[in-house]
Structure formats: C-alpha cells, structure tokens
C-alpha cells in the first residue's frame, strides 16, 4: 500500500519539483537583472572593467569569428552554384550568398561560436570566483559583484558581439563572392546585381538586432550560471556545461522567435 502510494505520487512529485526548480531559476535570473540595473549607477567601477572585457572579447574572438564566417560564405556560394547550375541566372548566387549570410549564417554562427568561447569563459570565471569565495570577498568589502563582475561582462558583450557580427557578415559575403567566381562564370557585375536586387535595408538592421539579442543570451546566461555555481570544481564544470548548452539553445529559440516577430509580424 505504502509503496504503491509512493510510486503513484513520485511522478507528480518529480514534475512539481522540476517546475519549482524552473520557477526558482526564473526568479533568481530576474533578481539578478534587477540588481544589474540597480548597479548601473556605479559607472566609475564598471566602465574601465568593461573596456578590459571588450578588448578581450573583441580582439580575442575576431579571428575565429571571421574564419567560421568566411567558410560559411564560401560553402553557401559553392553549394548554391552547384544546385542552380543551368537552371537560374548566375546573379542569383549573389542574392543567396548575401541574404543567407546577413539574415542567418553571420549572426547565428557568430553567436554559436561565441557561446562556446565567451559563454564558457564567463561561466567558468564566475563559477571559480564563486567557489573560491572571491564573490563573497567582494561583497564582504561592501562592493557590488554586479558592477565589478557582471555589468562589465554583459555590456562588453552587448557592444562587441554585434560589431563582430558585422565583420562576420562582411567577410562571409566577400568569401562567398570570391569562391563563386572560382567555380561559376559569374562576373563582379552579376554578383553585385544579384546582391543588390533583393536587398532591403531592413536586412542589415535585422542582422544587428539578432546579434544584439544573441549577445544578451551569450553574456547573461553564463554569468547567471557561473554566479550561482555550486561548490567545488564539479560545480564549476557543471555551470560551464549548462551555460554553453542553455545559451546555444536560447540562441536558436531567439533566432526562430525573431524571424517570426520581425519578418512576419
């Protein structure tokens, strides 16, 4: 009787427990955001640290972001050329390369690469600071971990990730252009014509808006995970893994959501 009852109740218990766990995450995340906004007044503290983080994100990630985006552009051009050979005018390659890089590949690939690079670093750094009591130490000195640790990281990401996305878009298109010319009898004029023909100015803004939202995910989620890491090296490892996975999934969700909201309102 007792065991049967336990067995029957275990499922709703598990569901209830994970629901409460999820709610607790939402609550803690919101509280962190509130603290973050409250600490924005301490600009003397976060501004120089933001510069440090921005330099490390910007200069440190530029190469890998450009590399990934260049390959994406080249592959898009090659595959488009292969697929439509003999069926469509070649200038369509220009259109497809520009549109797929600017609308999708540039922002999303950059974000996913940075989720691994920046997100993992943030989660590991803050997680280590948490378990070695550095965050407690900061608080014990009457200082806000938000203005010292979180705001610089988040702001640096919000500024630098869209900038990196712009570079990624530019390099992706140039690489696509170059490789299209290697395999197809397409002239610069054709490519330019195709690139410009279906271009809407909103496409560029859309790309940046996406990058901005992705930047929010890449910085806030790992900061939250690291900041709330459990004790020990295992806690840091878990926070880092969870941060990268959660950030990547959030990026893809945001990608879909923004496409729906902004392109098909």
């Amino acid at each position, binding site marked *: 009787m007792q065991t049967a009852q336990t067995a029957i109740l275990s499922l709703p218990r598990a569901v209830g427990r994970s629901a409460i766990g999820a709610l607790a995450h939402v609550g803690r995340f919101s509280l962190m955001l509130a603290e973050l906004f409250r600490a924005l007044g301490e600009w003397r503290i976060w501004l*120089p640290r933001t*510069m*440090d983080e*921005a*330099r490390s994100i*910007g*200069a440190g990630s*530029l190469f890998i972001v450009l590399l990934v985006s260049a390959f994406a552009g080249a592959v898009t051009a090659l595959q488009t050329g292969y697929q*439509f050979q*003999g*069926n*469509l*005018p070649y200038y*369509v390659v220009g*259109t*497809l390369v*520009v*549109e797929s890089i600017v609308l999708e590949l540039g922002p999303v690939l950059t974000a996913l690469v940075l989720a691994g690079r920046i997100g993992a670093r943030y989660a590991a750094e803050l997680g280590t600071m948490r378990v070695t009591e550095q965050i407690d130490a900061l608080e014990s000195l009457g200082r806000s971990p938000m203005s010292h640790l979180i705001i610089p990281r988040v702001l640096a990401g919000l*500024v*630098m990730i*869209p*900038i*990196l996305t*712009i*570079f990624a*878009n*530019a390099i992706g*298109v140039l690489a696509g252009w170059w490789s299209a010319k290697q395999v197809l009898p397409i002239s610069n004029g054709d490519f*330019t014509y195709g*690139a*410009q*023909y*279906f*271009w809407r*100015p909103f*496409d*560029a803004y859309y790309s*940046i808006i996406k990058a901005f939202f992705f930047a929010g995910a890449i910085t806030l989620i790992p900061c939250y995970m690291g900041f709330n890491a459990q004790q020990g090296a295992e806690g840091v490892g878990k926070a880092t893994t969870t941060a990268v996975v959660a950030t990547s999934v959030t990026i893809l969700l945001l990608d879909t959501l923004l496409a729906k909201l902004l392109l098909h309102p």
Partner: protein
Amino acid sequence: MDLHYKREALVGSIVLAGVAVFVVATMWLGGKSFGRKDLVPVHFTDVGNVKSSTPVKVSGVQVGKVDRIAFEGVGSVRVDLALTEHVPLSQDAKATIVAIGVLGDVEVVLDPGTDSVPLSPGQVLEGTTAAGMGGLVDELGGQARAVMIGAQALLNQQTADDLHETLKAMQRLMSVYADTRTGPTAEMTRLMVSLQGVSARLDSTLASPALASTMENMDSATAGLTRLTEQLTTTTARMDTLVQNMNAGKGTMGQLATNPALYDQLTATMKSMQALLDSVQAKPGKLTVQVKMF
C-alpha cells in the same frame, strides 16, 4: 596610465571599424553611391516589382537607378529616378517598366524623347508598364479560367482530352518553373499558385464521371439544347462545389450551354495558349529550362 589608453584605443578602433563596415556595406547593398545625380520624377499607376535600386536604362545602357518610391494614393505612385549619367530629356520623354527574366525582375527603360523642347526641371514624367513575361502568364490564368468554363459545353470527349493534355503539359511546365525554388519572387509564386489551382480544378472537373456521362449524353443527343441543360442541371450539385470559386455565384451553367459563341471562344483560347507556350519555348528569357514534353 598609457596602458589604459592603449586598451581603450583598441576597443574604440574595433567598434569604429565595425560601424564603418556596416555603413559602407549597407550603402553598397542598397545600391547607393555618392556623387552627382539628376533626379527625374515619374508618375506610375502601378510600379509592380520596381524598388529602389532598380536599374534605369537608356538605349540598353544603365544610366542610373530608382532612388525613391512614394505612394501617393491608389493608382498613383511617384518614382524618382536618379541618373548618374547626364541624359538630355525632352518634353515627350517616357519611362516604361519592363520585365526582364522570369523571376519578377524589372527595369525602367527611359526614352529621352525627340521633342525639341527640353524637359523642365521637376516636371513629372508619365510612366507606363509594358506587359512582360509576368503579364503573359497572368493573362494565361484568366484564359485558363475561360477554358474551364468552356469545357463544360464540350460536345466531344476528344477535345476535352486534348485540352486536358495541354493543361497537364502546362502544369508540368509550371512545375518545372516552380521547381527552381526561386525563393523571393513573390509575383511568380502567386502566379504559380493561381495557375496550379486552376489546373487542379480543371483536372478534377474533367475526370468527374458525372461530367463524362454528361458528355456522352450530349454527344448522342445532338439536338436538344433543352435536354442538355437538364442533364447539366443534374450534375450541377456536384459541379457547383468544384467551380464555385470560378463562377463566383453566377448561374452561368444554363447560360453557357445556350451560348453558341462558346466554342469559338474556346478555340481562340486554345490558340492563344499554344502561342504562349511557343513563345515560352522560343525565348525562355534568362532561364535555361529543359521542357521535354514539347
């Protein structure tokens, strides 16, 4: 302290470079360029697929681009052409929107005119739209509709079969076009959808056993138009649902059956369809389509 400046300068230069790339790239993609240009306003009733950066040509040479499109009211659109080349325009200059290719691309062909009086600055030209590929295919949609209606009065199964074949061929042609996955060409897609819808409906109509029996009845009873009307009426319930969209609530069935001009009209339609298909085959524009059924 100089270390601090170094770090901030690096961040600043990355940000500025990013902004510069953004501005230059969007200007390039938007087809904008610096430099002197003449603005020529043109008034159109419908600009179709024209958008800013659509090329403007004189004698086949690109002399500029569409700069701005302003909606002034239903059937009234003002388009500013930005000419980078200097083209002397006369009072009787004309601008025509011409379709090129089948993806819905258009260009504006500017005819500078022959009048000795030059165009006064700021004077708005009157623009027209030439029927291109898009127009032709559009027309076909209307004709197919007429064919569909005409099919109901066919006295000969053979003719119906022929028509069926032709339409199937048309449909295959269309699906070849459709297969190219052209993506953003909205107009083309719209046409495809409407054409395929028409063809599908026509197919089901011709395949309907009720119709077949009606056809036989009609064949055997060469006389009674009255009787034909009766027979058609028996199938109306079935047919109605099929052709409802086409007929839009008009009780055309009886009327059509009594209309002697229908057969002629159908023949003409078939001919024009054939002509269209020939023209598609002869000058497929920039498309290289292997249309095997012809």
